[in-house]
């Protein structure tokens, strides 16, 4: 699996597990607020979980306007 696809897959798996949503219900281009049913505070939890998992820092200003898993994966991939 190419690195970017692997990152995306890990994000989907981690988000599904943390917010207790079936993994198969999540798609890369989903709006994660809607797909996970989360609010802004839970989005911060997700951000922290992802930073801890990938051992990266994601300045939240870089995530402004980002709402789909694929774009999020691209932001993380750029810092790996």
């Amino acid at each position, binding site marked *: 699996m190419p690195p970017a696809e692997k990152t995306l897959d890990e994000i989907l798996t981690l988000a599904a597990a943390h917010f207790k949503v079936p993994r198969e219900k999540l798609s890369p281009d989903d709006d994660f607020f809607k797909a996970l049913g989360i*609010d*802004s*505070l839970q*989005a*911060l939890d997700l951000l*922290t979980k992802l*930073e801890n998992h990938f051992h990266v*820092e994601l*300045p939240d*200003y870089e995530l402004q306007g980002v709402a789909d898993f694929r774009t999020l994966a691209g932001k993380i991939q750029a810092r790996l």
Partner: protein
Amino acid sequence: MKQYQGQTLSWELKDRVIEMALHREPLNEIGSQTLEELEKFVAVLEALSHDAHALIVYSTLKGGFSAGADLRQLYGWIQEFGQSEVARHAREYLQRIHAVMNALDAAPLTTIAAIHGVTFGGGFELALTCDLMIADKLARFCFPELRLGLIPSFGGIPRLKRDVGNAVVRDLLLTGRSFNTTKAQQIGLVSQVVGEGEALRAARATASQMAKFDRTTTRWAKKFIKPIPLDELRQEIDIFCELLPQPAVQAGLKKFVENTSAQPYLP
């Protein structure tokens, strides 16, 4: 008085440890009511310290430690007092806040902030008054004030400067970005990182250890290693009151108060 049950916070002295629980919905926004209840606590702190060796501050709310100052109240003051008078009103309020924060900073016992979740702005500033921060892995810290055209005003900058390097202070303030517990430990703010939901337990264990030490020695050590930057704290109030009447601040606060997007806690 061994316990207190307030609207925004409660505390109890038990087994020589005072535990203060913050519980103002939605996320421990610090406004006038919280200030009054903190003032009541500070008024009895010296007396309580005869029977206690540690103070633990924590939040009972799922979302985190505190989202910071009550910005809706601040925006309301601008509407109520107008741009010409709001700075005077804010100065009086901030002097009271600083008196409380300084008293907590210099508390005659060891203080521990047990942190989870959102720890932003004024909530972060409250945590910075404590001797130790113990945070769980999902805690998130931020000074978002510059997004609103303001600077932190509860003593945040001088206390941050006391505890970490100036480059870190500039990064956190000038970007307004949030950062996680791992980063907070790397820069020297958080002394212990624990698993999710474990901060209070770890704080209690740490408080137990501190009970073994001589009280007088602990007080002297604290006075020596944790000076209160009083001059800079006064300057902070001056700068905040200079900025507050600016139109950009009113616009920033209005945008925040009226924000209905899904990400109000993000920049």
